[in-house]
């Protein structure tokens, strides 16, 4: 319970305001809170791309090896959707192959209903790996 709501209820309990006034205050509080949360969602635009930037050590000319990949989030959605359509009998084989490669993902857990959740989680992802001077850097983020 928020501090404002608690103080309104305390004022009601102490008899400082009547039930009608308390109801009006609570309604006004709900309205302002929903407006605030709406403003928050408006200020945070949905990420469109997943970006992977890799920069390795510089050569004798000072030119580093660079990799810059921008993957549309829609492509990830489509990929996860396609993965979720893999028939049950194929899951075991695919899971074993993934485990052998060190990818511990259970494909049977990927379902169309939790697809959005997976991609939304990626939007908050930021990975920065900096190995110090003379070594490479890796940045993964959504934009």
């Amino acid at each position, binding site marked *: 319970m928020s501090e404002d709501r608690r103080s309104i209820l305390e004022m009601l309990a102490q008899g400082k305001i009547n039930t009608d006034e308390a109801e009006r205050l609570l309604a006004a509080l709900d309205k302002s809170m929903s407006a605030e949360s709406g403003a928050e969602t408006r200020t945070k635009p949905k990420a469109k*791309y997943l970006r992977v930037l890799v920069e390795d050590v510089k050569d004798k*000319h000072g*030119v580093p090896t660079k990799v*810059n990949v921008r993957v*549309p989030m829609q492509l990830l959605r*489509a990929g996860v959707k396609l993965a979720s359509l893999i028939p049950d009998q194929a899951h075991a084989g695919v899971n074993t192959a993934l485990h052998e490669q060190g990818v511990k993902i259970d494909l049977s857990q990927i379902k169309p209903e939790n697809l959005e959740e997976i991609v939304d989680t990626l939007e908050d992802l930021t990975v920065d790996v900096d190995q110090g001077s003379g070594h490479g850097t890796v940045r993964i983020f959504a934009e």
Partner: protein
Amino acid sequence: MIPLFAVIKFRNRKNDRWRGFRLWIPLFLVWVLLLPVVLLLVPFAVLTLRLAHMKAGRSLAAFWQLLCSLRGMHIEFEVPDHGVFVRVY
């Protein structure tokens, strides 16, 4: 909407100077040329998906979505003397 163009750029460095060329690939022409082949292959694809116990409609829709979402893809590799840049529009 399916991708309409792709740009592939190659760069090479010789004697400290970068040289390269850029290819604009009109993907919409590729799609037009591939359309009759795709229409011929669709029944076979549906049959194969059915035999594999996969939902044909949903699988084809997901594949279409995959193709459409390629727009905006950007891949760039640059090693000291060479560079490749691919962008899908």
